[in-house]
């Protein structure tokens, strides 16, 4: 398992005009420590910048963070942009995804419908996301092998 993940690349960033950097700094450290190659795009990253980086680094995963409450707006059409660029990667989103986060299940549903494979709230430990990604990448062994070659 460790062997597989050693060479997998994840692209990471905060979408939209959001400037909250602490969360992705922690995520960058956590995914690096877990053996992933991490491309951290930082804050205020556009949909196009995510797509370009995913293509350039042949990423297996795109991890989107949003903490300022406008994630739904910022992610409209995001998966079309990824698709058009030819990105074939799992996509996760996490953070404070709605302003009045009364019902997270509703929020999860919204973002699943937008195209994200997994949706996390702001209380999620990095370990949880790492475990999920390992699971998601291992159930598609061909991708895992390709990753081993490509990185």
């Amino acid at each position, binding site marked *: 398992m460790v062997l597989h993940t050693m060479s997998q690349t994840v692209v990471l960033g905060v979408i939209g005009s959001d*400037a909250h*950097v*602490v969360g992705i700094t922690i995520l960058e450290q*956590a995914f690096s420590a877990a053996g992933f190659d991490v491309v951290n795009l930082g804050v205020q990253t556009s949909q196009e910048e995510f797509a370009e980086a995913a293509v350039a680094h042949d990423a297996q995963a795109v991890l989107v963070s949003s903490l300022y409450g406008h994630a739904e707006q910022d992610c409209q059409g995001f998966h079309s942009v990824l698709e058009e660029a030819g990105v074939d990667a799992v996509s996760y989103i996490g953070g404070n995804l709605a302003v009045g986060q009364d019902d997270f299940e509703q929020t999860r549903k919204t973002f699943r419908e937008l195209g994200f494979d997994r949706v996390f709230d702001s209380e999620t430990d990095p370990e949880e996301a790492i475990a999920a990604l390992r699971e998601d990448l291992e159930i598609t062994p061909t991708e895992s092998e390709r990753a081993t070659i490509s990185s």
Partner: protein
Amino acid sequence: MIRDERIPADELQRIDEEIRSNWPTGADVDFEEAIEYHESLPEHKRFADVLESADKPLLQPRAGVPRLDDQIELLEYLHKEGQADLLPTTIDSYTRDNEYEKAQQGLEKARETGDDTLNGFPAVNHGVDGCRKLIDAIDAPIEVRHGTPDARLLAAITFAGGFQSFEGGPISYNIPYTKRHGLEETIERWQFVDRLAGAYTERGIRINREPFGPLTGTLVPPSIAIAIMLVEGKLAATQGVRSLTLGYGQVGNVVQDVAALNALKKLGNEYLPDEVVVTTVFHEWMGGFPPDEARANGVISLGGMTAAIAQPDKVITKSPQEFQGVPTKEANASGLRTTRQVIDMAIEQKIDIDGIEEEQDLIERETRCLMDTIFEHGDGDVVQGTLKAFDSGALDVPFAPSDSAKGAVLPARDDDGRVRIFEWADLAMDDDIKEIHKARLSQRATTEGRDQSFRMVADDVDAISDGKLIGRPQGDV
């Protein structure tokens, strides 16, 4: 090539005219007439004099709403019910991005509907007259607080509008606030702001300038914050600023916070020219707050206790509703009164804690390493030194969103809760100092029975909002 040199008079005038043409209200600024207006203000509205002559820490909240009448009402409330000594006017986000047209729309909508569609007071749109109505209405000094990388027009209008204190600086209002504003650009723009403050100062109107000390607000090691305060202070002094309030954000360890405030004061006086009056401001905890007003009051009180011991000249207070964003005026006043009560109960007590001198000495040595590397990088010029040191990573700020800083340095608390540096990256620091940090973090790792890792950083970031100072592993030690 931009250097730490005073903007010549003709250049000042050229930029001033250009900048004032960016928005209609800029035309109303008349420097000579503004001097007269300032001269007409009573003593108790002169910010620098009030702050510098106080015999105990003065309290100031954060507050800004779009409409003038509402802002007057809000500040009157905080002055009377919160017993704030100094008042703020916090500027909205559009103005911070120089989007005056959007700010205008927001202001008009606020006037029509009564809803606050802006998150602050659009001072540029209110113009000189609007600002003066506020200054006239409130019986205390008022500072402009914002977060604007290019604050030239805001400064031109608020200075002419009667404000005598202006927060921010080229590094402290860039690195923590924005991704893509180049540092060279913001330095140049703040040289204008400081030069304008200097021009007023030369005419006897001492505009107080306050670099923003907390930076990213998250576990910033004291020496990094202090070095940036010294740089911004020096840049401002070069442009003629004579009243400087250097800032520092609480990290939560009492000994380290008192030591840092002592070091800030001492180094400020040492590094800045003699003609500058240096004061200090202590920001109550700027990191994540507990989602619970009762616990938030505990965090606020620890800040008050620290202020009572360190006795900074000013304290920026937090409210128990910090977790949820902008507080009600009642909660804002409540944070002021809680802080006041703690300070007034503790300030007459002699509370000398062991180890403060030692910690202060460490902070001073670290700060000198950073200042030395800045001078070296710039071959004696602070502007070039700052640009090059950030570029090389010799100077860095943890959790910095800006592309102008590497943001590669990572802090973590030691076993006593003091903020140390876990990941140095390329930060310029003597090896013996690095060894001290390493040993302290190693002690914590031993206590917790785990390796030093980014995990400590992550745990520490959340610790205070989770009810503790140090992010210990779950299940306690």
